[in-house]
């Protein structure tokens, strides 16, 4: 495992190469980047194989020593890391291959791949970090890449604004992360992951540290109330949305909580907060997703909702189920986003109601999208079903019934909006103006979809009771083994089918009148406007800051600058006055000099004794 450092190093090298030589590589840039990530994927696979064989490792090397503070960096490989490595490298590989087709026309092609490489390197560093400071640095680097890629088309104002919004919003969470590290440092004395997790923390310290860490996770994983950046982040290129804002980076928050799970587990309050926030987020995002028209935004809210579900899992103690859901979600959400990208690429619109009947022209995309959608909806037998199942069961067994109800309702809504999305986009009749331009996407895009469809549909089986919950057993961390709860499973199947079925009736058969819900319905408006959270933030947080800044600015420009400019004005006017004496005639100056000398002589003769 001594070569594990290569996993982040290869994409990092790719970034550096593309940064300096990218222009020269031009259209061939992706060979560097894809080659690096495929190598990293190969190494990750080998490491997973070794970890399954029972080996793990923690390598620490001293990095900095500041006074009494010793910082180490290193590589920590355990089962969680191995799983995350697989998720990140496989999704990243496919997304990068897909991008070759999707970004073909872009003039900053090499820069795009450079950013993707840097992001991948940072994300891999994040999951391999053996020290929290190292993790924090990678965490920030990941945030930076997210900023760069959301704002990749920075000529578009919406993209530039979204990038800023994402950066600023997640930063609020990052402050929490940093403070959490400070607390941990004072409590434990160093920040090596191993020793921090092994330490026995006082309950109060554990609560404080875990809540602060969770604040960081809320920012990165778009949990209520810091979720507002994620839907806007869809302004970035779609493969970026798939990789960063669906599969990997937003999972970083979940990963942070999972990695620090022993700290959270030491504090009942923290666990409840995690579960509560997760439930609120899951339900809120799912309801918003019901009424959105933009295909990527629907998926974005779906992502928020599913991340909330993962938090629920962690909060109710279903550590392995949550990580399992993270894994399955990464695959099927990446698949859905890439499918959406394929649709957008072909239809040149993101409004689902302008599409329709696309299945006829885009068979490959439609089929893979259906697989992803069903997996997300929790269709029995597919990935999402098994992983969601684990979380629901854990919530139910623990007796957290409100959370369980929220999760169940979320599942129902999820199934419904997935059905709505699929039926509106792919079935029904095609718009006339779409007929001509719609076509199947190039092979570079469809092939990753096809490849991704397998894990998206089937990876869940590893964690299913059919295989003895092998995945959960692999990751298990002190929790009791899961038992299949037939009632929960039955409810879960029921809500998934009910949601899909209702969507089918509503959007595909036309059995229900279309004006069933009036667009003036206040609840509809509430959802449509995303609970007015953006407006509340604008009025409540941004406006006072801007107002205060304005006041200070007017003080500065009025009083401070006024004083400065007044002085300058006075000097200038005085200069104007005195300038009249200066005619530029040197002989006049000479005459004045003579007069001055005479005065001086008189003065010396009269007052000074020579």
């Amino acid at each position, binding site marked *: 495992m001594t070569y594990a450092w290569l996993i982040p190093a290869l994409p990092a090298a790719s970034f550096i190469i593309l940064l300096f030589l990218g222009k020269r590589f031009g259209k061939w840039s992706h060979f560097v980047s894809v080659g690096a990530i495929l190598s990293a994927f190969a190494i990750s696979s080998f490491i997973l194989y070794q970890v399954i064989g029972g080996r793990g490792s923690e390598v620490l090397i001293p990095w900095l020593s500041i006074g009494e503070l010793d910082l180490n960096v290193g590589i920590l490989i355990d089962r969680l890391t191995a799983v995350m490595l697989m998720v990140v490298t496989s999704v990243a590989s496919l997304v990068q291959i897909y991008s070759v087709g999707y970004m073909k026309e872009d003039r900053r092609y090499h820069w795009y791949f450079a950013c993707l490489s840097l992001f991948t390197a940072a994300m891999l560093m994040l999951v391999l970090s053996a020290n929290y400071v190292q993790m924090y640095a990678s965490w920030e680097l990941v945030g930076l890449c997210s900023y760069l890629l959301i704002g990749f088309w920075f000529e578009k104002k919406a993209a530039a604004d979204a990038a800023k919004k994402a950066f600023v919003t997640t930063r609020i969470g990052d402050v929490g992360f940093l403070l959490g590290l400070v607390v941990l440092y004072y409590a434990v004395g160093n920040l090596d992951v191993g020793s921090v997790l092994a330490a026995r923390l006082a309950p109060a310290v554990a609560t404080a540290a875990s809540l602060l860490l969770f604040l960081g996770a809320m920012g990165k994983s778009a949990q209520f109330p810091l979720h507002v950046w994620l839907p806007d982040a869809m302004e970035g290129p779609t493969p970026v949305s798939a990789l960063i804002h669906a599969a990997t980076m937003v999972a970083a928050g979940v990963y942070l909580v999972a990695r620090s799970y022993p700290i959270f587990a030491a504090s009942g309050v923290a666990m409840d907060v995690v579960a509560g926030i997760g439930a609120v987020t899951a339900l809120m995002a799912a309801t918003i997703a019901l009424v959105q028209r933009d295909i990527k935004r629907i998926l974005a809210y779906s992502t928020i909702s599913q991340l909330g579900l993962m938090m629920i899992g962690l909060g109710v103690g279903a550590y392995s189920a949550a990580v399992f859901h993270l894994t399955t979600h990464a695959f099927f959400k990446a698949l859905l986003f890439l499918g959406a990208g394929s649709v957008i690429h072909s239809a040149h619109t993101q409004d689902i109601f302008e599409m329709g009947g696309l299945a006829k022209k885009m068979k490959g995309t439609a089929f893979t999208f259906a697989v992803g959608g069903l997996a997300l909806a929790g269709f029995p037998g597919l990935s999402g079903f098994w992983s969601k199942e684990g979380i629901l069961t854990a919530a139910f067994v623990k007796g957290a019934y409100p959370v369980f109800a929220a999760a169940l309702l979320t599942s129902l809504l999820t199934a419904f909006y997935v059905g709505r999305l699929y039926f509106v986009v792919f079935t029904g009749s095609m718009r006339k103006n779409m007929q001509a331009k719609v076509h199947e996407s190039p092979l570079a895009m469809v092939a990753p979809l096809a490849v991704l469809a397998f894990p998206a549909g089937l990876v869940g089986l590893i964690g299913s009771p059919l295989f003895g919950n092998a995945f959960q057993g692999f990751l298990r961390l002190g929790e009791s083994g899961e038992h299949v709860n037939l009632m929960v499973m039955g409810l879960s199947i029921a809500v998934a089918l009910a949601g899909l079925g209702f969507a089918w009736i509503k959007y595909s058969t036309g059995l229900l009148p279309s004006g069933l819900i009036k667009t003036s319905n206040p609840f509809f408006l509430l959802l449509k406007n995303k609970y007015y959270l953006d407006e509340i933030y604008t009025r409540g947080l941004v406006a006072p800051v801007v107002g205060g800044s304005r006041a200070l600015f007017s003080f500065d420009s009025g009083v401070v600058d006024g004083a400065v400019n007044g002085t300058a004005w006075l000097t200038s006017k005085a200069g104007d006055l005195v300038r009249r004496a200066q005619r530029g005639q040197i*002989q006049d100056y000479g*005459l004045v000099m*003579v*007069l001055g*000398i*005479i005065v001086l*002589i008189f003065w010396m003769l009269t007052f000074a004794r020579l």
Partner: protein
Amino acid sequence: MSGPELVVFSLLGLAGVGSAVAVVSGKDLFRSTLFFGSFLLSVAGLYFTLEASFVGIMQIFVYVGGVVVMILFGIMLTQQEGARLNASLERRLTVAGPVALLAGILIAAIMTTSFKTVREVPGVDIATLGKLFTNDYVLPFEIVSVLLLAALVGAVVVAKEREK
């Protein structure tokens, strides 16, 4: 100062003052320059009466032979027809007042001062001056030579037509 000396001094002084006045008030610049030459000769004569024969000779060589000739060339190159040489009468009077006052004060001050060293000393020969230049004043001497070189080059640069 004895009788003959006083006579010589008076004649030279009058010649000098007359020439100087002609230099600063004449209407013709060319003529002014010639009067400037006669002024310089008067001063050289005064140097001889002060037993500073080497300085007097240098005055004639450098000033009369060099500077005056150079200025004549300058006048010929820049002379303009009908250019007025003098300022207005009003201005001349305005200047004359203070200048006369200044000169008056100076003369009054000189005449009322009793200088301590009034003993006449023998004149200085060239050999002494040469030794002084190569011993006590060797550094200023060398600096002056550099200054002359710099002035020579500088004058050429300043006067030279600018290349586009």
